[in-house]
């Protein structure tokens, strides 16, 4: 059965397009670089993309589907990353799997992965339907990722409620696409707003960063090549915190300098 030491972490958000797959890819690489034997499982069978973000799309032979059907061994389906051999991807199967896949199937796949890895990251599909429920059934802990936008925060709240009722714990928060300038002008929900509303410990803040798009174009996650861009730093800090290291969070107000930034900070002062 599942070896007890393995961490099985669900990466979910409720809303689509907030950065689940990007976080899974970057965190997977960053954890692998720290020496953790890491498996990433694409649980988004309908719209798989984790292979693409990791640059592994051309190396897929078998998927989770063949492993479940018993037509191949797990080792045959796992795609090892060439530059980072501690990381392996188990690709999502055919979208038709959604018709018969059950929570027990996900649990079986994940316990197979857990036998050979220190960390299993599950890239959850958007939504709160069967795809989410199957993925959540196999997880022990979760990272909820959201952006400072009303729809993303609302959907995250729904997911947090479902995770709590399923006994997934701990559940930690990553706030993605933070724009310091908009926050300073109070035209974007602040970090405190989001953490107060969702009442989750903050695992990391990722600043809006064009390099994320560049890296997905190339299929090379930012954490792979030691990039110095703000998002790369944020992702590797998240990986370090996950492993128990104490790494201070960045303060979006301190990212900007000059008089304008000072004025923005002054205007955020709570007066009553």
């Amino acid at each position: 059965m599942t070896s007890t030491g393995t961490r099985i972490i669900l990466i979910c958000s409720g809303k689509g397009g907030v950065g689940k797959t990007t976080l899974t890819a970057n965190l997977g690489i960053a954890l692998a670089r720290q020496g953790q034997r890491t498996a990433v499982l694409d649980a988004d069978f309908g719209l798989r993309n984790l292979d693409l973000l990791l640059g592994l799309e051309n190396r897929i032979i078998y998927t989770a589907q063949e492993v479940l059907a018993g037509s191949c061994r797990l080792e045959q389906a796992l795609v090892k990353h060439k530059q980072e051999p501690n990381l392996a991807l188990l690709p999502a199967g055919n979208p038709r799997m959604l018709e018969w896949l059950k929570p027990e199937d996900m649990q079986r796949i994940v316990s197979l992965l857990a036998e050979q890895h220190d960390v299993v990251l599950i890239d959850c599909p958007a939504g709160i339907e069967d795809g989410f429920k199957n993925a959540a059934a196999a997880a022990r802990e979760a990272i909820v990722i959201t952006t400072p936008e009303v729809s993303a925060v609302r959907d995250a709240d729904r997911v947090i409620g479902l995770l709590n009722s399923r006994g997934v714990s701990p559940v930690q928060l990553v706030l993605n696409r933070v724009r310091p300038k908009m926050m300073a002008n109070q035209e974007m929900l602040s970090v405190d707003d989001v953490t107060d509303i969702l009442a989750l410990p903050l695992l990391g803040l990722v600043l809006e960063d064009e390099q994320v798009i560049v890296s997905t174009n190339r299929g090379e996650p930012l954490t792979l090549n030691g990039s110095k861009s703000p998002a790369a730093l944020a992702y590797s800090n998240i990986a370090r915190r996950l492993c128990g290291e104490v790494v201070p969070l960045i303060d979006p107000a301190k990212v900007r300098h000059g008089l304008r930034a000072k004025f923005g900070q002054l205007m955020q002062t709570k007066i009553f």
Partner: protein
Amino acid sequence: MTLRDFVNKLLGRQPASATTARERLQLVLAHDRSDLNPELLEQMRREILEVVSRYVEIDLDEGDVSLETEDRVTALVANLPIKRAKALSLPA
């Protein structure tokens, strides 16, 4: 209220959109979390007022029953101004 909100108010401007976002979210989440739709809430409000008005005379127009959320805990808050207690004998 932040200094920016205060200045906006003085100048008769709209509050910063983050403030609006926070308020709208808090309201919508209170309802999401309790799974009560507005009709059910209204029905509950009427029934609560009915029960309370059996014992004390309350101002039905001023009465307010709402959901408030803090730290993922949603509370039902009833604010019912009492005019006077009713002379009521306990059932034997």
